[in-house]
């Protein structure tokens, strides 16, 4: 029993507190979103809140198991766990149940299981293990390549379901790679690519009239602006003209090709509903009854909450199904509507505090394995948080991914719990160096 005492002493109770609050708040809001005056039993297992209560209780069991296991196991079994995740992903493509056009679920009787949620945990372990074993930084090309392969395998399989939302979550690992030595330029490149993607779409259907009755296409204007900026840079660094000329020209060519290919990618690679959602997000189209319905309803629900909110169980927009998916992807609407800005503020603060705490935990590790893994946890949770809340308030495209610990759903709750508590179990061993 010495071991258990150590865990109790060394485990990070602050994170557990944050976890507990979030899970409890999540359950309250699921209850509110499905509340029905005629049928108000707290533990009605036909209702989402009743089922979520079961998921919460079972995840407590999961936590217990994780905590009594030897921390070494997660390092030793990283690859087997990862591979079993891949097998499940392949399995679901064959034996899975198709819901809303995607084969993402195993269904056993009344309960269903989403392997892509579990795969995130496996991928986090595998990436951690790989980077740790090499004990090298992510600067080297081979390391970079293998890392990306570890991520691409599950992402590719999920893409086949297809479940674009869950695929995008794998972008979160870029934070981990960056911390472990990936060049900052990659991060910068990623951000630039996103910015030009948006700019290219925004100017797509605009044009500017110039003299002689000619029209300048938006894209040309955009590129001319880029050229001007590059020209200014060239003139400012007058002394290094020779050195700068070629790279600046190269940048311009790359941007030009990229901007022109955005149209093609947008029109031919993305599905039409994805195109609509992006157009809606960027304000290119406004269709509150069609593509923009979800976000518009979501904004109405959140916006109507005011500063203090309408009060617990008083939310009309969420309770009466104006907001779609109000227990899962749009659960934040209930917070916004019933608890107002105050509630939203508390929730966002709780989440950001959790992410900070996890980074703090990561940085105090002597073991690289623990550090890398905790970065994975923090990044994945953050990415879910940013996309999920961003989409409800019209700042991110509508990508159906859950809000960690909060949204209704067994698979996601169990996976996030597993992800987090493995991290906490590793942290509890921080005085030992794991291999």
């Amino acid at each position, binding site marked *: 029993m010495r071991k258990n005492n150590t865990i109790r002493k060394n485990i990070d109770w602050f994170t557990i507190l944050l976890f507990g609050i979030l899970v409890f708040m999540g359950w309250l809001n699921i209850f509110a979103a499905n509340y029905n005056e005629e049928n108000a039993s707290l533990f009605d297992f036909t209702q989402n809140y009743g089922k979520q209560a079961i998921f919460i209780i079972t995840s407590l069991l999961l936590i217990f198991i994780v905590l009594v296991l030897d921390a070494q196991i997660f390092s030793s079994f990283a690859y087997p766990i990862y591979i079993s995740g891949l097998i499940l992903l392949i399995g679901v493509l064959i034996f899975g149940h198709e819901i809303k056009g995607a084969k993402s679920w195993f269904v056993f009787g009344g309960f269903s299981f989403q392997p892509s949620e579990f795969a995130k945990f496996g991928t986090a372990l595998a990436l951690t293990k790989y980077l740790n074993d090499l004990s090298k930084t992510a600067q080297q090309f081979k390391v970079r390549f293998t890392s990306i392969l570890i991520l691409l395998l599950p992402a590719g399989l999920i893409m086949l379901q297809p479940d674009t939302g869950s695929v995008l979550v794998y972008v979160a690992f870029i934070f981990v790679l960056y911390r472990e030595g990936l060049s900052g330029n990659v991060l910068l490149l990623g951000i630039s690519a996103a910015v030009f993607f948006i700019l290219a779409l925004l100017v797509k259907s605009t044009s500017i009239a110039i003299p002689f009755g000619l029209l300048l296409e938006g894209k040309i204007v955009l590129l001319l602006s880029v050229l001007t900026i590059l020209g200014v840079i060239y003139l400012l660094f007058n002394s290094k003209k020779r050195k700068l000329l070629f790279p600046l020209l190269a940048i311009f060519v790359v941007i030009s090709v990229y901007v022109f290919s955005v149209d093609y990618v947008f029109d031919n690679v993305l599905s039409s509903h994805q195109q609509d959602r992006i157009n809606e997000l960027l304000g290119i189209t406004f269709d509150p009854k069609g593509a923009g319905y979800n976000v518009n309803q979501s904004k109405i629900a959140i916006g*109507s909450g005011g500063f203090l909110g309408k009060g617990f169980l008083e939310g009309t927009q969420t309770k009466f199904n104006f907001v779609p998916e109000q227990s899962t992807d749009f659960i934040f609407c209930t917070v916004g509507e019933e608890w107002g800005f105050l509630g939203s503020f508390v929730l966002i603060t709780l989440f950001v505090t959790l992410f900070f705490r996890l980074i703090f935990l990561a940085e105090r590790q002597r073991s690289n394995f623990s550090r890398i893994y905790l970065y994975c946890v923090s990044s994945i949770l953050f990415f879910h948080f940013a996309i999920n809340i*961003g989409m409800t308030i019209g700042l991110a495209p509508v990508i159906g991914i859950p809000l960690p610990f909060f949204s209704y759903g067994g698979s996601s709750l169990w996976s996030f719990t597993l992800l987090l508590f493995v991290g906490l179990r590793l942290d509890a061993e921080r005085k030992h160096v794991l291999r």
Partner: protein
Amino acid sequence: MRSLEDRKIVILGIFIIIGVTYLIRLFYLQVIDETYKLSAKNQALRYVVQYAPRGLIYDRNNQLLVYNEAAYDIMVIPRQVKNIDTLGFCNLLGIEKAGFDLKMEEAKSFSTYKASVFEKQIPSSQFASISEKLYQYSGFYIQKRTLRKYPKPIASHVLGYVSEVSPTNITKDKYYRKGDYIGISGLEKEYEKELRGKRGRKVLLVDVHNRQKGSYKNGNYDSLAVEGDNLYCTIDRDLQEYGEQLMRNKRGSIVAIEPATGQILALISSPSYDPNLLVGRDRSDNYNNLVANDTLNPLFNRAINAQYRPGSIFKLVESLIGLQTGIITTDTRIKCNRGIINCHGSHSNDNLVEAIQHSCNPYFYQVYKKIIQQGKSNSIFKDSEIGLKQWHEMVTKFGFGQKLKSDIPGIGSGLVPDVNFYNKWYGEGRWAFSTIYSNSIGEGELGVVPIQMANLAATIANKGYYYTPHLIKSISDSGRIREEFVTKNLTGIDSKYFDPVISAMSAVVNQDGGTARRARLDSIEVCGKTGTVQNKDRPDHSVFICFAPRENPKIAIAAYVEYSDFGGLWSAPISALMIEKYLTGEVTNKAKEQRILDASFLTIYEEK
């Protein structure tokens, strides 16, 4: 190169930037921008109007004249109409697809998220089958309304009708909203504020499928509809019905008043119409029919608004003024010289009572001459002005030449010419008695409306005063009544001067040689005066005013039948039947009654 550990700063920075951005965005959405709050209310709350049932109207014996019947409006909220089976819906309501589109367009142009009436006043009989299936059509719901219903098709001019408010009504009175009802004429208009009650409102929660989810905030924002006040009318339903029967196929009116109170017992304008026609979905068709296709103009309320020359009944007024001013006494005899003005019957040198009984024209020519020409000025023109001024003042006190301050909207004033009138007509100093003598026998420029004639009968019955004729004796059960209806209007004629006039009126009816023998009743002493208003090329108007019984009169009547011949022939017996019906409840002389019921002057009206 710096330590990799420092890179956590970049990552934490990104966390913070996203967190803060979201908080700013949320602050904007939730605290600053109000549009979302409005949208939320528009989506999730439905304001259902609770229409107050209009007050009922009873007659003087608490018999119903007007009550309410449930009807159902189908309402539509255009933005909630999604993916409905339009054809099925049209079949359910029995309308055409084109009509459906038109109505939807109309509703949309009013508002996409506020309810408009889609189909009005579905009767209860069709309601059940429609309401059963309406849930299939999102965006439509049923609003309960009430419609006016009349147990007997009578008194339409008294009661008036209601109609949907016009845009003008809405701008004039902030109470009204689109789709409300308002009284347009008669008592419905006059007592609109009392009858309409107070509209209530229910705030309901609805879900995305437009299903009701209970009341908003436990009904704290609801207000109950308050029923309109009931009205207790002075009309006697049976008498009114009887009078309308008597006036069938005749044009004209009967007004009956209780002299002691001024309460109107019956107000009949003929031709009339069935008030049930101006209710419900066919209202506008029926209305147009009544206006366009009926040359007799049944919507026109003759009893209060048709201006006629009074004819010989006006001799009563001349007599009273003559006595009060001392120009004549009961003993004054005047020769019936038929030079300037013609006469009828065999009499030569009547006193006042005889002159009234025989309706002697030269007698009242002379009386009027003495009233107008009092010798107060050397100029005959100036003298006539002084005389006419005094006469005008005295006549006006009988309620003539002015709108009686009654509770009947649209009441006419009639005309009593004054000095200004003739100065405008002929020029100042260019008229004298010889120009205006026709007034002496109720012809000339005089104009009266039937209710004023009935009021004259009541005034004589009261020997000198009247209460303004009115229709409502109590608003709700309170006994509340307008102040002016319990105020005595004095004529300024001493009551002793009424005795000879009343004796004469009794003689008119009850003595052989009187002009109104047909008004005689065995058990009741009727006092009356005939009038025969001359028309060129066509039969005369028949006029009769009377009251009964002579002692302690209970009813005063004016009857006017257009183009039917002289007063004693038609108006007198009609009045007598009314009196007997009212005082005894039963008409004994069935032959007399049948003669009236059979009489028709429609062919004369059509000639023109």
